[in-house]
């Protein structure tokens, strides 16, 4: 209760942890995007490595398995010359008694400089950030349904790369908004960077209550929601949501909300298509679109490494 100061910022207002996009000033978001721009250059060189974080120990703390995200953080850290230690924490050993905080205290005693945290529970990185000593930085690599800030940032980097000015754009986010940490980070980033119109499109079972309070327009119909947009951001539909009480079947979801060439034709002719991966082809996106000329899904992956390098180097320097 009565917490007012943003736990992500140090007393100078600089980024100390990256836990969520929410509450970060646009200036900090732009600083991360600009720094990432320089790292894109580095990743195109003969030696894709800089000595910036030499001697730093970065722990990949994954309480929820994700090879993909873990790998991008690992590559980014190694390109900054940091030592990377990967820990996949078995959830079953968790239930046998060692709490998140015990795990973290143990690792902090091993002289960690940074924790990259993935957890199935919303807010777990906040909990960790509250309890680590102040020389340790925490990066949220995805927590529950709450936030996935580096994904949100790499999406912003991608959009800026192709569209330059955020202040002229219409952006649609499509699919399972309710369970998506990616969507929440995207919405905060887009609104902070000045995108005038952010839309979310999905069935009522997959849209959270009062989502319009986050500054978005709600659509249930792709034909209306995609009309004249510059950017289409598709979300991944988790397997367990495809059958049951949220949706009757993946086929029916695809019929209404899957991105096909016909539906994409409603957007602006030069609209770009993003997806955080891994894709369910034929469920949320058609292969012709995923592999088509408007898709920027592969560049997203490349930019993701530069963004994570930028975040780690800014945090380690603050």
């Amino acid at each position, binding site marked *: *209760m*009565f*917490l007012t100061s943003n*736990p992500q910022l140090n007393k100078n207002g600089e980024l100390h942890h990256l836990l969520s996009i*929410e509450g970060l000033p646009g200036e900090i978001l732009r600083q991360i995007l600009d720094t990432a721009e320089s790292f894109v250059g580095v990743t195109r060189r003969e030696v894709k490595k800089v000595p910036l974080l030499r001697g730093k120990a970065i722990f990949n703390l994954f309480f929820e398995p994700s090879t993909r995200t873990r790998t991008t953080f690992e590559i980014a850290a190694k390109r900054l010359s940091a030592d990377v230690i990967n820990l996949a924490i078995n959830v079953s050993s968790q239930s046998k008694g060692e*709490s*998140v*905080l015990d795990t973290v205290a143990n690792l902090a005693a091993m002289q960690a400089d940074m924790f990259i945290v993935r*957890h199935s*529970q*919303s*807010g*777990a990185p*906040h*909990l960790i950030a509250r*309890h680590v000593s102040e020389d340790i930085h925490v990066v949220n690599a995805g*927590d*529950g*349904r*709450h*936030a996935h800030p580096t994904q949100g940032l790499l999406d912003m980097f991608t959009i800026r790369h192709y569209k330059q000015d955020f202040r002229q754009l219409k952006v649609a986010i499509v699919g399972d908004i309710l369970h998506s*940490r990616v969507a*929440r980070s995207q919405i905060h980033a887009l609104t902070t960077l000045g995108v005038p119109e952010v839309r979310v499109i999905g069935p009522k079972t997959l849209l*959270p*209550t*009062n*989502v319009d*309070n*986050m500054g978005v327009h709600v659509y249930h119909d792709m034909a209306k929601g995609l009309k004249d947009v510059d950017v289409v951001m598709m979300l991944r539909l988790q397997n367990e949501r495809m059958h049951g009480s949220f949706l009757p079947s993946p086929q029916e979801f695809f019929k209404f909300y899957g991105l096909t060439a016909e539906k994409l034709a409603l957007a602006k002719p030069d609209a770009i298509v993003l997806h955080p991966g891994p894709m369910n082809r034929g469920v949320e996106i058609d292969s012709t679109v995923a592999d088509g000329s408007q898709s920027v899904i592969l560049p997203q992956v490349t930019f993701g490494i530069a963004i994570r390098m930028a975040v780690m180097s800014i945090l380690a320097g603050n």
Partner: protein
Amino acid sequence: MKIHIKNGRLIDPATGTDAKRDVYIAAGKIVALGNAPSGFTANRTIDASGLIVCPGLVDLAVRLREPGFEYMATLESEMQAAAAGGVTSLACPPDTDPPLDEPGLVEMLKFRARNLNQAHVYPVGALTVGLKGTHLTEMAELTDAGCVAFSHADAPLTDTQLLLRAMQYAATFDFAVWLRPQDAGLARGGVAHDGQVATRLGLAAIPVCAETIALSTILLLARETGARIHLCRVSSAEGVDMVRQAKARGLKVSCDVAIHHAHLSEMDIGYFDPNCNLTPPLRSQRDRDALRAALGDGTVDALCSDHTPVDEDAKQLPFGEAETGATGVELLLPLTLKWIEEAKLPLAQGLARITSGPARVLGVSAGRLQPGVGADLCIFDPARYWKVEPAALKSQGKNTPFTGVEIKGKVSYTLVDGQIVYESA
């Protein structure tokens, strides 16, 4: 022991008294108010100048954590906490381990509590065996053992047919049934109010209709069966409105609200403060305002602490995994005073929600001051500010959303049956 409490401002919500009046106590009972009975010589005189003398507080939900959860709190620690909070009568819910579903457990609890010589403990028995929602408990036996009512605590009761029969059976013998209205299916998996905060933070949500649908089921069954129903921890504007209408139609229902819900809303979750993970969830500011209005107009009969001591290990977890509940029995009085002051109510009217109101729900004679009744009193300094420091709380549970907050009103003395059970330093 004869005690003379002098120069205090006596407030008795039961009679509406608010006047400077001395209290004379002998043999555990109040013997006179105002003038000393002839020949009264006090063994001890308490100077209550600047203090308020009111009936000892009656708290409808204090978890003493015994049996079964001694690692979270013990009878000793929580009874001391109650005394420090001015609470002289308390009801404890049956969600112990094992639950209070057998007379032996209830007798043991009563026996152990009696030996501590502190607050009167009124166990609420389990409505179903093991709180599993399948078999009725032996309510008559449990009543003989000391249970004052039957409840399902926060355990889900999904079988409406069983609920109907439990109410029919209880109605047969006029046993009171205390129920927390929450539809188990609609609340499944949820950890926060279905509103803007849960949406922003990505927390699984519990909609208001989980409460109102359960409420309408309970109210219809109450009308059907004639059972004496007390509704626990109502949390929403629509919820208290339904209670208001039910009372207006003459249904025999009473209702309480937890003190935290009278002050906090979903916004206070802030950055995932696990101390704000409560059952029911903290709802919107509009809901909180409606609860406060309903407390003022009497729709809500009682404010309770819903005291839930939780150990650090179970609380310092990601929000959705943290054990729910907050420690509160020591904060009930100051937080009630805060509400009274903010609502601009007369003290006597406000204090009724923690004295005569809950005493009526419990069906006990506590909660009033008059010659002949047991001398259960709370003497407090209404102007004294203090800061909530978890380490300084008597309760073994240090889990409170009010950590570090300055609050006003501190208990100076607590008397149970004419014995001083707490005296502030």
